[in-house]
């Protein structure tokens, strides 16, 4: 319950009116709302700030810088190997042989 109050408080809401004992559905609700609130709550900040994306924004960090080329290579591997799927960005949409 306490964690839920903390979460509510960081939204600027008061918690005193809610009387509740710990139980499983509540725990679930707390977890869910925790998940929901993490993005907006000032007490839990994302650890990489928008202005710190210098290196992440560099094109060399892209998982799939050239989608056509990556899609082609996935197609080559798919047609020579038994495994398929989870190729990631640029994976061909066609499930053909």
């Amino acid at each position, binding site marked *: 319950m306490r964690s839920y109050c903390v979460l509510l408080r960081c939204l600027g809401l008061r918690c005193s009116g809610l009387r509740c004992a710990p139980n499983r559905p509540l725990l679930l609700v707390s977890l*869910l709302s925790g*998940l*929901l609130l*993490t*993005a*907006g709550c000032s007490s839990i*900040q*994302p*650890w*990489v*700030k*928008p202005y*710190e*994306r*210098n*290196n*992440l924004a*560099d094109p*060399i*960090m*892209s*998982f799939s810088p*050239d*989608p*056509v*080329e990556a899609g*082609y*290579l996935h197609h*080559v*591997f798919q*047609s*020579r*190997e*038994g*495994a*398929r*799927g*989870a*190729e*990631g960005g640029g994976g*061909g*949409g*066609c*499930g*053909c*042989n």
Partner: protein
Amino acid sequence: MAATDHALARPLNGQPGRLRGGLWLLLVALFSLPASAAVLPADRADVLYHSYEGGGVKIDGPAVLVRKSVTDDVSLSAQYYVDEISGASIDVQVLASEYAEERTQYDLGADYLLSKTIISLGYSNSSENDYEADTYSIGISQDFFGDLSTLSLSYAQGSDTVGKSTDPTFSEEKTTRSYQFGWTQVITKNLLMNFIYHVITDEGYLNNPYRAFRYLDNANDPSAGYTWLTEKYPETRTSHAAAVRGRYYLPYRAAFGFEYRRYNDTWNINAYNLDLSYTHPLGQHWILDLRYRFYSQSDADFYADLFPAENFQTYMGRDKELSEFTTHTFGVKVSYELDTGWSRNWLEKASVSLAWDLIQLDYDNFRDARRDDLTPGTEPLYEFDADVIRFFISAWF
């Protein structure tokens, strides 16, 4: 319906109420979170020439992609792709089977940016004189948690019509369904990771109608020879693949990438691959990419290079793709980039790239049946190298 289908269907259909509730919560969570970096893919055009040469076959052709945003929140893409096939692979040489000589593929896509969410729709058509495939896909991706995380879900459904050029009356159907879950996470200022879980199910005619398995005429005497017979495949296949990949930014402006993927399916093929890559800019204009990939798989339950008898088991196949083998891939890519810098110009950036991959395939239980001078079952194991080349010009505008 076969048991393998139930295995896949259970989590989706088994408890509809609970899933719907969970999905609803998930959707509420997705749509309510403030985020700011969901962006549509950049406008670009690519013209590519690709060539695959190895094992007696050459497959090459062009590909063209154009992606353009039509409004602030809608981006459309179209791709045209051709495979021209020539030469004769080991299968063609052994079985005198035929190949389609050309495959043409069209892809159309639309991405719709709705606040912090991107909804993607896709259609793809692949056409050969003996094979026709249509695939529809829908996907949703959402940035959240201060844009450190991106969650994506996608579903695709394909229906294929399998024909046979030697038999105009031959026509079989195949349906493919694909479910993919993806999670991309910013770990640090320099590390990006991605996790994908992908389930694919096939139902229908899954054979290659030109391929055959071989069985001994006399199980006790291989020297008596063997006979070829059209393969018998199961009518369903469900596969699970999970991959973890990451990219790490090195302090001197270079990137190190890795991927580990595991795979298994209801044909009992177990596979994994490990990829390592390194991207290194040289000066202002050049980018060098190096990569190494190792792949290994076990064979399918119904695979054998040489069956002891005609009706040895229900399903029998001898596709080398179903055998036990490993591949090593060594790749290098060089790009020359011209950055015009500013979005006010119609052309923001252009690049020319040349990439070459050498794939070495070593089969552990697929033998070279062209060697009819040897006793069946004692032929050397098959192996070959393939060169995969791409040359492409890209423009961002």
